[in-house]
């Protein structure tokens, strides 16, 4: 085919090529990524949790790492060791960031100090130490005491149990729980309150609609070590919405704010990670109910 205006044709083609290349270049530039460039080390923070108890059947440690965004990722490839006065055990990973070991291999004894040592795959270490509160006992009621059921209305009946107990050394936050169950020990009604004193007037209300037959219940007192106490009070509860959110009337909102300010940015009893490594001790008894 003969080109009539070869020069103009070539110029036109060259211009078209330039425009085409320019369009491709602009298209590539448009397609560039718009995600932020993140320094992971600034955001990825390990969290460790552990709570030792003399009555627990197994030791359990939870290990996870918070991300820049999205959910925290469990760490399953660390070496987790727990040591105490009677020796050291290595906890086995069971997945989802949990490490467990049978409690019989390293019994937890009140008043003793236990140490946690976690070695991550990159060699970084997380350590913790906790002293278990000393043993305590419930003074009143006596085991198997019987309490009379009071009728306060045609629908509601009450059981009033005055409770006292000794204080465990190393603990200042305590929890009182009492449950009434049916003959199969299924929960019908209960009572739960935090306290910092060693006495409590336990009142359990039972609505007639429960319809169950019952004749006994369980009273349980749990005493937390200081690490868990501070963690618990400063983690969940806020005084911004008013005093009714305060779980513990004996501690003012100002005090909770002070605790939060002091502990919100560091792990409790833990170094190298955020989180908490604490302990609980508890005592419980069964009481009976007379209609």
């Amino acid at each position, binding site marked *: 085919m003969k080109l009539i205006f070869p020069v103009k044709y070539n110029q036109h083609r060259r211009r078209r090529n330039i425009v085409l290349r320019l369009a491709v270049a602009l298209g590539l530039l*448009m397609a560039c990524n718009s995600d932020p*460039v993140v320094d992971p080390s600034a955001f990825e923070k390990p969290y460790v949790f552990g709570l030792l108890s003399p009555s627990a059947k197994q030791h359990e440690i*939870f290990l996870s790492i918070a991300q820049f965004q999205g959910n925290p990722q469990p760490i399953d490839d660390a070496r987790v060791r727990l040591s105490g006065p009677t020796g050291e055990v290595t906890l086995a990973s069971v997945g989802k960031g949990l490490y467990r070991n049978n409690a019989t291999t390293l019994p937890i004894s009140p008043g003793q100090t236990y140490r946690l040592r976690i070695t991550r795959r990159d060699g970084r270490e997380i350590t913790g130490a906790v002293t278990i509160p000393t043993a305590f006992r419930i003074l009143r009621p006596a085991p198997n005491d019987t309490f009379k059921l009071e009728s306060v209305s045609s629908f509601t009946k009450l059981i009033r149990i005055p409770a006292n107990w000794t204080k465990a050394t190393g603990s200042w936050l305590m929890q009182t729980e009492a449950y009434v169950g049916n003959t199969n020990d299924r929960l019908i009604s209960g009572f739960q309150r935090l306290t910092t004193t060693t006495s409590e007037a336990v009142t359990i209300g039972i609505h007639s609609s429960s319809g169950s037959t019952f004749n006994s219940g369980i009273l349980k007192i749990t005493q937390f070590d200081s690490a868990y106490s501070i963690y618990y009070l400063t*983690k969940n509860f806020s005084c911004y919405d008013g005093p009714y959110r305060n779980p513990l009337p004996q501690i003012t909102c100002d005090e909770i704010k002070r605790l939060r300010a002091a502990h919100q940015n560091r792990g409790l009893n833990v170094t190298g990670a955020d989180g908490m490594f604490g302990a609980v001790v508890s005592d419980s008894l069964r009481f009976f109910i007379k209609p």
Partner: protein
Amino acid sequence: MQKLLRFNLTAFFIFFSVSSAARAQQPGVIYGKIVDDSTAAPIAKADIVVEGTRRGTSSDANGNFILRKISSGSYVLRVRFIGYAEARRSIRLQPGDSVFVEIRLTRVLLKLPDVNITAARETFQEQSLQTMPSVTQISADAIRRVATVGEPDLFRALQTLPGITAPTQASNQLYIRGGSPDQNLVRLDGAPIYNPFHLFGLAANVNPDIVDRVTVSTGGFPARYGDRLSGVVDVETRHVNEPFLALGNVSLLSSKLMLAGRPDSRFQWLVSGRRSYHDWAAKLFGEDLPYHFYDLFGKAVFVANAKHLFNLSLFYSADILFHTETSTIEVYELDDLNRLVIPPNRIGSVYLHERLGFPWNNLAANLRWEHTLSPQFSSTLAFGVSRSHNSGTEQDGFSASPGLPQKYIDLYRGPSREVDWSVANTLQDLSTNASLLWQPSDVWQVQAGAELSRVRFNYAWDEFDTEDSDIVVFFEGAPDSFSYRNEYRRHGFFIEGLWKLSERLRLQPSLRLDYRSSARNYTFDPRVSATLELKPDLNLQAALGRYHQGLTFLREGGLFGVNELYFPMPFNSAATHGIIGLEYQPRTDTEIKFEAYYKNFDRQATPLRLVRSVSEVGMADSWAYGLETTARRGNWQAFYVFSHVRRRFNNVAYDTPWDVRHRFQTMGQIYLGKSWDFDFQWELRTGQPYSPLHLNQRIPVAVYNSRTGQLEYQYQEREVDYPKGAIRYPIYHRLDVTLSKRMTAGKWSMAPYLQFINLYNRRNPLFYEEEYSYFPDQPNDQYAPKLKPVGVPILPSFGVRFTF
């Protein structure tokens, strides 16, 4: 040390031998004025050459010129200026004489060829600029060529210079070589402006049409500029040489008009105004956009005689956001128990008024008296006032129709009369400057001056929710109600020398002494800059200096920057600048520059944490270093900048939000023929660090279950204190283009233009918003936020510039 001593002795002898020779020759001085023959208007920048010698100069803004150290004898002065016929004047100079001449130039129809003056320029300012490194001068035309949203913008144009960045693409703030905006001195005809912004910080409030040129110093500036640590933006308004001139611009954002004239040689005037009109445009479409801005500028120059000049500049800019809304409630009759009477009986109405107002404005006025005492001495005395004010209030009001019983008024009024919040912040700066320039010879000149400045602060806010605002206060607690009154006085003294040590080496030593009432002590700032001509087309430049500042505002970058609150700090912040550079100019239209700098900032007020939660401020130290490479040829420019800005606070070092590690930019103008111009600007740079205003992180939490005796785990959203500078935006790149056509019709010339900002629609994040999405692999319907970039899309714009 011996070398230094030898150098000083050599310099001392050179100085004295030159001075001695000058005295022996008893030279004379020729000075005078260049004016238009028909209007007697002074002509600026006319070229004056002594024929048969290499001596020459150019006239200043008022047509004045001076030639020193002219040997006695007969000479012919030749004067040229584009549009005028060349003029010659014979002069006979006796030994020691000072001769005044007035040369009148006649307009010609033929355009004269451009004249290149090769003789040394002799004005102090010109020589000073040549000696200082890190100085760029931008003309009004260059400002207009930078594509911006809506219309040309002064600060957007400055952000295209190497060494000047903004924390975000939206911000109009200038971060100059590591310094923050409060560390820059912005002057309009000599008067400082504290918040030079319209449109919430998106646009500069100085109309580019009134600008003659902008001198920007990114470091190493001399002692005449005081109380700023980082940079200087000195805006000089237009000199009027024409009997009458009108300039206008109509754009999507605003319209503006400038009128100027020079009716005779002794008087020139200029007025300009600009107003945005999207509030009116919105009304046309039935929308309510209750915001507009405007600015006004006026200037008058009066030349009493050849020795006295008075310059008065007035500037006012305002942004007004004012929204009112009234809702009407029909009132029906109620019985004694406030029950509706059946059938309903309408007895009147009550009106609930909502008012939201947020105006801010700037006022600057400057009166300057320039006095030529003798050929060797001239003085300047200036009085200035600068005021920055913003206020805001949100108020609910109540009214009722006439005759409505009090019972109903009481019933509906409720709490509606309470004022929700109000703020009112005013800064007022009164200053006086005096300087004396002594020009005994071409070898050395001295300028000395004094400044008295008093800044008053009156800030107050009431019921203002500081938790959610980005206003930062520097005391504990950030209360809802706040009142701050203070006064900051500063006395400054400076002396600058210009010393031509040889034909190739110029030195500009200077010294500054300041007293600040806030810190109650004196600061002493020695500064020096030098230029060494290695070859006729190659200069080596260097500067070293110490700087102090007493005012600061307490932010660390952000989306926008408007109405910053300056505070006097009880300590002086300090900085040290060190600059070295090479300037190569192989051709008149080609320039290549390399410049390396280091800046160190001490004791800068810095927010402790992120904007959202700042109520504490401490002192931080910063340092910035970089290498700037710039190439210019004709209408094309490209530069690459490597820089690093880092700040240390509370023993933690971090990259600041305006740290741009690598930056490449190219811009130019291509003439397409037939009066069509194509301007382009492409920038590629490292994403800057940012700190999100609020972004949650999911962390694991544990709760003790007393029934199982074990901990139970769940996730919790928690706002965390993000480490500063730990997140960077992705690589930033953007192409802006402008297509314009020049047209003339009689005395009118017009240039309609079409612009595209971000031509290929790059999603450069302005910020990220949290987008919650479902993570199916997580139990209990857990949701986690994902970051979604929000940026400026492709923005087309058009307008027209006209002149007559």
